[in-house]
């Protein structure tokens, strides 16, 4: 018999994930036992999300206290698996809010799926759990587990439609390419472990402060593979080729959620690894990230110019946005990046909520022709879409402008002037394709009748538009929050 000393368990560090997982299982069990109306399941998931968000407030307060009065060590929980620093709590909070918005935006899809709606809701909650673990993990294996829990849920969500449609193809593509990316990521983790002997992110940083590595080849190859794996998840060029097909094929009710979650978690994980674990190696990775960033911006914004499908357009604009967000990491600070990721996620979910209204929640593909004269069919819907698109383009007085200004100035301050110039160029190009959609909505005639916007979609659009405008006019509170989101 060996004596096992039970480890200290700090429940507060995982309470949001615990609540989410219980909520997901709860939804499945309630569905099996009582077969309630979909509304009941929606209420359960809403309560779950609210409780989880409440716990992130508690965590935020505790993290703030620890920063002020000391005791930062207490923020590392479960033998170094999970951290509860401001960065993780901020990420969790954003993920949870986006999960709520995503569920609202996809609500009509959930209703259409009938009895399988419960699975859709549970998968959304489980994906949120996974990505939440990912942004809070201090251990690369834990991060991989979170990544897989989140990604596998998303692969399935991409194929959840009531009929056999193009969504199957999208789900299969996403699954195969995503699995490759995950495998590349875990291979990178293995090499990083071989090189440093550590899996914990804080311990890896410690390793680099204590030792000077004379032959870092294995470590650098590992790091490169990690960047490739995460670059795929956030659809940065040249790892973006899956995004247009998946965005186009997957049911429009979930695309916004899918894209937003993968981007938030992917960028936060990348920032944690690069900026917290291996800041000493920045001579090696900064040029690489800057290159990926420049390529993403140029490829994304130029190919988006010639797209005739609104979803592919949004996918390529997402590639460009991945490049913009990466300039924040090149800047070496997380404030601008956190702000950008937050406001972009809201815009993305809002934009795909519009797509879901226009082309139906389980449709695949939305030609730009469907949007001609949309502003006449439903002035409010057209205006909301226009505001969201202009926000993505970065028009002053929208959140997109503040976000771009934030990350660009960080990159400029870090000596990457050329990257900022490329970014400005790409921003100008991006106005062209966003305006193309807006012109089609406002200038073109249409014979189509008015369009009915469901209550849930109205809520999502109201919140998304309000967020985009408010964060553009009064960005200070959100910027302060992002600045307080310290990383251990």
């Amino acid at each position, binding site marked *: 018999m*060996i004596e096992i000393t039970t480890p200290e368990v700090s429940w507060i560090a995982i309470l949001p994930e615990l609540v989410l997982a219980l909520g997901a299982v709860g939804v499945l069990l309630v569905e099996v036992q009582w077969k309630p109306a979909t509304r009941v399941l929606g209420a359960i998931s809403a309560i779950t999300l609210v409780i989880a968000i409440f716990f992130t407030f508690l965590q935020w307060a505790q993290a703030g206290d620890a920063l002020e009065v000391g005791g930062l060590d207490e923020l590392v929980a479960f033998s170094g698996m999970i951290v509860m620093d401001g960065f993780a709590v901020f990420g969790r909070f954003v993920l949870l809010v986006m999960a709520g918005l995503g569920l609202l935006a996809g609500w009509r899809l959930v209703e259409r799926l009938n009895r399988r709606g419960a699975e859709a809701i*549970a998968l959304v909650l489980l994906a949120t759990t996974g990505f939440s673990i990912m942004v809070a993990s201090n251990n690369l294996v834990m991060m991989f587990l979170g990544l897989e829990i989140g990604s596998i849920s998303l692969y399935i969500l991409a194929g959840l439609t009531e*009929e056999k449609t193009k969504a199957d193809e999208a789900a299969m593509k996403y699954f195969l390419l995503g699995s490759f990316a995950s495998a590349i990521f875990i291979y990178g983790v293995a090499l990083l472990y071989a090189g440093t002997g550590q899996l914990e992110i804080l311990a890896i940083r410690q390793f680099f402060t204590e030792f000077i590595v004379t032959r870092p080849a294995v470590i650098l190859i590992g790091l490169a593979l990690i960047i490739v794996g995460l670059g795929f998840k956030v659809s940065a060029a040249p790892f973006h080729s899956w995004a247009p097909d998946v965005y186009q094929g997957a049911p429009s009710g979930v695309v916004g959620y899918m894209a937003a979650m993968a981007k938030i978690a992917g960028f936060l994980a990348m920032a944690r690894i690069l900026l917290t674990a291996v800041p000493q190696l920045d001579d090696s990775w900064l040029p690489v990230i800057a290159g990926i960033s420049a390529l993403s911006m140029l490829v994304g914004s130029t190919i988006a110019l010639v797209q005739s499908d609104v979803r592919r357009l949004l996918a390529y604009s997402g590639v460009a946005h991945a490049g913009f967000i990466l300039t924040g990491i090149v800047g070496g600070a997380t404030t601008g990046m956190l702000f950008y990721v937050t406001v972009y996620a809201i815009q993305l979910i809002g934009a795909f909520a519009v797509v879901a209204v226009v082309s139906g929640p389980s449709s695949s593909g939305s030609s730009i022709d469907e949007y001609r004269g949309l502003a006449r069919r439903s002035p409010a819907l057209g205006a909301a879409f226009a505001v969201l698109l202009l926000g993505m383009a970065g028009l002053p007085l929208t959140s997109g402008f503040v976000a771009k200004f934030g990350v660009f100035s960080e990159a400029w301050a870090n000596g990457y002037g050329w990257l900022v110039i490329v970014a400005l160029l790409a921003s100008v190009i991006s106005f062209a394709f966003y305006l193309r959609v807006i012109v089609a909505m406002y200038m073109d005639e249409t014979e189509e009748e008015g369009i009915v916007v469901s209550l849930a979609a109205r809520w999502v659009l109201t919140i998304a538009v309000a967020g985009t405008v408010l964060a553009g006019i009064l960005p200070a509170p959100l910027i302060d929050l992002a600045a307080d989101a310290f990383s251990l």
Partner: protein
Amino acid sequence: MAETILFVLMAIGALVGAVAIVAARNPVYSAMGLLGTLFSVAVLYVLQLAHLVAAVQVIVYAGAVLTLFLFVIMLIGVDKSEDWDEKLPYQRAFVGGLGGVIVLFAGALTVFGNFDWVPAATNTIPEATNGTIQAIAELLFTDWVLAFEATALLLTIAAAGAIGLAHHRREQA
């Protein structure tokens, strides 16, 4: 000495199996090649004193995973001809060259005994207790308990996903 001989035999076995997986035209032979590789690697684990990992390797991979592979192969049909066109030019040459470089690199490392490339690696023999069930259980239920529990979520996802994707699906309208 016996260890070295066993290592060389099993290493050759693993490599032959691996080549057979990609070279065999009949998928059943590929699966058998995989079986050979998995068994050889299991023996290599035993040589590293990782007995539990070796046992898990045989039970999970050679037992469960490979059986699943064979099931799928049989369900699809062994005799179906496959499309052998290779879309990427020079893909064989490229992979072969890359593999060669890696083998040379690893060989050079071993010959020259230079472990600076992988600072964390040691060439000391691990303690005999490291691979035992108790040692692994202790780690799994203390330091790694959260990771252990998180994998449970994956099973939930698999169940929910299988039902969601397969159940009550209407054919294309």
